[in-house]
């Protein structure tokens, strides 16, 4: 199919005497949707934190387009196009939805001090483009009417959508969603599924997600990786995972 964008091998993370992640390997192809599943405390979020630079992994290698990125700072990895959401929504609550989206475009804006001070044409243009792009995504996630509402006052499902839109502002290549469907009702989960589909089809984004909603995972993933107690248990297509006796024993449960 397409080429590999992210290759993780032998990833391990040690906190003192606790080996939270041990030898996890991932291989993500461009425009794929890859899911990371496993019981609570299996180390899924730790893997995310390692990939996005919030933790420095104790061992293993992470290659983005063949370039090693392990050990880089969080914002440096984000600038390379690996952007994530959080298990508990992390919006800028006291700022409006629109401002949330503008901040995420910081790197693409004219940040020259004097340009901003005197509102040069270049500065105006860059601000205008940012607004346009923000509006485009507000429409996509159906939040236009809430553009000027403080993010903290939005309903939970809306906050989740805004967080994804905010990630898209940074023009990511890999979007990492940490339990995006947690706390959503069935209708919102359907919408999320459609949104992830659009991200992949129209915007060419590769999606890596952690999720407990098996219906969602099985229906959108191209590839699933299961970890249990920090170690990889299985990986394969949704069908292979569903039929894997070890996965059923450790996580899915007997039907």
């Amino acid at each position, binding site marked *: 199919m397409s080429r590999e964008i992210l290759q993780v091998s032998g990833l391990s993370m040690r906190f003192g005497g606790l080996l939270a992640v041990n030898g996890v390997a991932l291989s993500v192809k461009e425009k794929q949707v890859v899911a990371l599943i496993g019981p609570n405390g299996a180390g899924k979020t730790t893997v995310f934190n390692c990939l*996005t*630079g*919030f933790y420095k992994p104790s061992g293993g290698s992470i290659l983005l387009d063949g370039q090693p990125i392990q050990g880089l*700072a*969080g*914002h440096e990895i*984000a*600038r390379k196009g690996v*952007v*994530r959401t*959080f298990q508990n929504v*992390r*919006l*800028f*609550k*006291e*700022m*409006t939805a*629109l*401002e949330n989206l*503008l*901040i*995420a475009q*910081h*790197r693409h*804006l*004219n*940040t020259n*001090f004097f340009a*901003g*001070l005197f*509102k040069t044409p270049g500065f105006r243009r860059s601000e205008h483009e940012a*607004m*346009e792009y923000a*509006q485009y995504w*507000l429409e996509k996630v159906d939040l*236009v009417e809430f*553009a*000027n509402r*403080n993010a903290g006052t939005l309903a939970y499902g809306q906050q989740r959508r805004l967080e994804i839109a*905010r*990630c898209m*502002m*940074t023009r990511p290549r890999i979007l990492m969603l940490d339990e995006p469907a947690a706390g959503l009702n069935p209708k919102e989960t359907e919408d999320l599924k459609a949104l992830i589909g659009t991200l992949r089809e129209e915007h060419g984004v590769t999606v890596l997600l952690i999720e407990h909603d098996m219906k969602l995972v099985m229906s959108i993933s191209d590839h699933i990786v299961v970890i249990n107690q920090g170690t990889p248990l299985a990986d394969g297509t949704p069908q292979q995972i569903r039929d894997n006796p070890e996965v059923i024993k450790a996580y899915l449960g007997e039907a």
Partner: protein
Amino acid sequence: MSRNLKSAFFSALLVWAVAFPVLGLKLSIVGISLQVHGQGPLALSVIVVCSVLMFLRVLFDKQWSAMMRSAPRGALISPKVSNFLTLPRTQRYIILGLIAVALVWPFFGSRGAVDIATLILIYVMLGLGLNIVVGLAGLLDLGYVGFYAVGAYSYALLSHYFGLSFWVCLPIAGMMAATFGFLLGFPVLRLRGDYLAIVTLGFGEIIRLFLRNLTDLTGGPNGISNIPKPSFFGLSFERRAAEGMQTFHEFFGVEYNSINKVIFLYLVALLLALLALFVINRLLRMPIGRAWEALREDEIACRALGLNPTIIKLSAFTLGACFAGFAGSFFAARQGLVTPESFTFIESAIILAIVVLGGMGSQLGVILAAIVMILLPELMRDFSEYRMLMFGALMVLMMIWRPQGLLPMQRPHMELRR
């Protein structure tokens, strides 16, 4: 009931314990020793009345709160008015109105009034600068006065040793203070909240102690005196000009009047304050201003979006300090004298109080708070002994009634194309 009675009794006792040493005793100097006297019957009766009131208040606590609850709960200001006042556009008009008043002020006010207004403007500048660090970036800085001192001493030293003029030193002082802000920024990057406050507090004190103990360079506790005032395009406002300078009154052929100097200083302060207002107002609407606020809200989310927290924090510290430097060099020029004692912790506390009182992040709030904080003590000179008591009372009342500050500002409403 008996429990109520007990706590009421202790509350009344507490009033005595607090009020009696503060209000009921008087120190007087007899020869070379201090003697403690009781105050007159008036002060004592005030304390008695207060403690009785406190006793009744606590005794009938339930009835009191029931009464308060049943009373019509009209807010101090109706929500509509309050909403109107916090709109960014309204605040802009109020600021413009204030600027108009400030421009004509010196030509109608008395000499003393202009002098106080100059002082207020210095604190407006400081408040606006600290507002960047505390109000926007959310970094609690208790050593802001250190940068103020750096600015003041930069001008004082440069003029003392090299004879440089105010206008040359102003940008240098700003840059010096900014450099110090940058240097302080580095070690405190990893700190937050209380820890940051303690370190910055220490930094402010270190600067003051340095200035005090570098006697050879800074004159130690005596400070540096005879600092020249700013000139108006090379024209001096003194009665007799220094060598190689002309005086303002000779050049324009008017009678010498010392009030001209006061008015000129006021106008310089106004110019600097307006400059600060303009620059910071623009900064708020620039990507960096938004990034400061985002950092205050959630640093981890900032990192996840590719914003470099290090640079954002450092820029807040540096720019905030820069404005303190400007204010400091003007302060040195106005006083004509700088000593380390002008830069004690209480100054930091006043500036911080201005920011908090004004409503974090709101520029109009900072301006109003600066007026209140400087004007009140001046108006109540007769009660100067109780100044700190009043500060405390003001702060407590603010926390109860308007925890968001005098005049907070709503988020700017940005129009989207339909």
